[in-house]
């Protein structure tokens, strides 16, 4: 225990003297084209503090990191864990309540949010994105995708929240009995399984595959930022799994007040206006004005397991995936 106290003491010494907030997040959030830079300057303009981002590859690695660091963590806020992981994180007691009153906020009804630890900051639906110059008639269902002669890129469900989203999607569609076969069908069409979302999306844009696992909102990026309709998301008739991205205050922070202020800021109209056009996800507030491109996005039906069910089965589902695709 003495070593722990000493380490905490050192950690505290590092943050003394400056009003600093350290936010752990995933790497595409902090990249030059991601929301990081704008969120930082907007929050710093109102908080009289310095906001530091520390990034991990993807959402799952993020949680692993916080878990590994435990009481020694430098994080005041963890941003970018998704709803599939929140029960696991809750069980590990890594976070503390934020004290936000949900009744005051115009939150999107789809979210039905009332959690005391986690603050949703954006959401989206997983979808396979394709290049209209390669694919004339995109798949309209997972079944069709898995039986067609195409090449696919997706992310490792052990490291990436997007890959994990696909795992939940496959489980929701095929159940324990049929999912192995479905994974194997996917494996035959897989170019490679990347660790994070950025790698696979980069490869896709270089023409390495016909489809890449991403979000229904990804085409908005190409429409708004690149002024092209070339990339589109395939809508599946079976329905899509949603991802709600959340932020939470570390249980071990010494900046709980500032951290809560930051979470409030994430829910503000200002931040909600920034996120859709930098992180390319849907805002959690309903009173945000979005570029016209967002009206042209697919609005799929939402399916999937609850966070509690996911927490119970996640390890078993990962083993199933690992076994199926390593054959």
């Amino acid at each position, binding site marked *: 225990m003495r*070593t*722990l106290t000493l*380490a905490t003491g050192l950690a505290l010494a590092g943050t003394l003297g400056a009003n600093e907030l350290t936010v752990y997040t995933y*790497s595409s959030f902090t990249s030059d084209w991601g929301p990081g830079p704008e969120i930082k300057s907007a929050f710093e303009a109102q908080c009289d503090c310095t906001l530091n981002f*520390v*990034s*991990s*590859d993807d959402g*799952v*690695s993020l949680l*692993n*990191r916080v*878990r*590994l*660091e435990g009481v*020694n963590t430098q994080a005041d806020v963890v941003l970018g864990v998704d709803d599939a992981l929140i029960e696991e994180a809750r069980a590990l007691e890594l976070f503390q309540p934020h004290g936000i009153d949900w009744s005051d906020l115009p939150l999107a009804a789809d979210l039905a949010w009332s959690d005391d630890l986690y603050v949703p900051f954006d959401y989206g639906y997983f979808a396979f994105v394709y290049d209209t110059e390669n694919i004339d008639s995109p798949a309209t269902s997972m079944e069709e995708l898995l039986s067609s002669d195409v090449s696919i890129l997706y992310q*490792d469900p*052990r*490291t990436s929240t997007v890959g994990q989203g696909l795992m939940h999607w496959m489980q929701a569609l095929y159940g324990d009995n049929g999912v192995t076969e479905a994974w194997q069908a996917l*494996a035959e069409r*897989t*170019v*490679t*399984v*990347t*660790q994070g979302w*950025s*790698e696979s999306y*980069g*490869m896709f*844009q*270089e*023409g*390495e595959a016909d489809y890449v696992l991403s979000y229904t909102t990804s085409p908005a990026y190409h429409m708004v930022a690149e002024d092209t309709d070339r990339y589109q998301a395939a809508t599946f008739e079976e329905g899509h799994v949603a991802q709600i991205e959340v932020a939470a205050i570390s249980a071990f922070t010494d900046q709980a007040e500032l951290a809560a202020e930051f979470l409030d800021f994430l829910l503000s109209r200002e931040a909600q206006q920034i996120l859709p056009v930098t992180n390319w996800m849907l805002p959690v507030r309903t009173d945000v004005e979005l570029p016209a491109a967002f009206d042209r996005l697919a609005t799929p039906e939402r399916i999937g397991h609850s966070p509690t069910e996911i927490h119970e089965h996640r*390890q078993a589902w*990962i*083993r199933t995936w*690992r*076994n199926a*695709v*390593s*054959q």
Partner: protein
Amino acid sequence: MFAGRPLPTANRQWGSLIWGLAALACMLLATVLAFLALFGWSEGRPDLSILHDAYFHRILRFTLWQALLSTLFAVLLALPVARAVALDARLPGKALFLRWALLCFVMPSLILITGLVSVFGRSGWLTPWLGAGWNLYGLNGILIAHVFLNMPFALRVLVFQWQSIPDTAWKVSAQLGLSGWQRFRLVEWPAIRGVLPGVAGFIFLLCFNSFAIVLALGGGPRATTIEVAIYQALKFAFNPAEALTLAWTQLLVAGGLFLLFSQFGRLRWLAPPQGQPWLPALHPFTRALGRLAYVLAILFLAVPIATLIPVALFRGGQGLPWSTLMPVTLRSLGFAFAAATLATLLALGGLELWRRWTAPGARRWVEFAALHHLVIPGMVLSVGLYLFFLPWVNWIRWGWVAVIGLNALVALPFVYHQLKPRVFDFDANYRRQVADLGLRGWPFWHRLYLPWLLPALRRAWALAFVIALGDFAVFGIFGHDSWRTLPWLIYALAGSYRLQAAALASLLLLAFALIALWVLEDHRHHA
């Protein structure tokens, strides 16, 4: 400042004894702690249930299978090239080729990976000619990379064997009028047969322990080795129990293989190429075949690396992450410098004990301490130490200490191997004179011992530097995104398909490896 004032005897002896004992303790302690963790003494106990998992059987099978294929290709392809290099007197550029082969063998894997992706990847320039079904990711890429890295090793050993056939054997076979085939069977085959099991075994072991290549070119769970699975269990799923079981598997198989193959004796691959006064006449047909093999080998070993230059410079210097590259490069150089220096100090410390303790039993202990890290895969040692210290150490902050220390231990056997014969010669030749002169302490080191060791020290240090510079596995366990080294930056860049930037970073890494190896080779004539 000590030069004019001889130190008291006891003081001098204590100094080098303490140094030696400290080095010995470092070498052994790392292993002992790693083993304590493997036995479940610290974070997590081995989870044996995975031994019944079909996934485990598949990766074990794949690990062995890819190692077997890589070994076969590497050795079979090396044979005709080595013969041509050794026996064809008029082959141009042999010396340069052999130097390049040495570089290929110690080439940091990430340089090669970037090169292979540029040539054979989905948008590689050769890919359109490879047919529709071509896919670099998976067994294809793993085999190409392993043959690239290991064929040059087999080649150097075999060239040396062919060159070591004495003139008289050739002359006698010419006088007897032996046909080409008879000569091969009676003169050449006996000379190379002896080293083949050792060469093949060593290559098999290297491919069995392959990490970077498989992680980058494996293309997902279908092509995974145990080494990669250990990394994934720890870093992806944070499952120490599974990582421990896999580490045991890796240790037992790799250790067993090493003990088996080390029976075949020591291989000479760092030895300089020999000049040969008398070479046999070759049949025009086999000579032509040999030359063809030589040209193909040059192409195979040059193209994936040469291709980096146009790829890196294609779009000029714009949009390159110079601001990221600089600190990462400096960090990598700093780590490699520290690790190489530490490895050299450890080896010298061990050798101090070796010089001091003349009893065979004591010497065996020193040898064991310095060399046993060859048998224990770096990944196993890393995982063990990582888990052992996990409850007390924040690795994200202190991982760099482990990266330096473990890279020093990984390089230590090579450094020790390079230094020991030189130290042995020194004692054999000068021990008595040194005693008569009464030279000891700093003057002894400064005036006599270090100058004598210098060529070997340079060579050993440079080798350790290149090994540490290319490190991927140790950093994989202890490292973090926020303080990447050059190989991991290349991995991230190539992974997100920023090939130009990856190529540039690879060229930087290559340049530093070349400089270090230039030091290594340039002083060979002193050895």
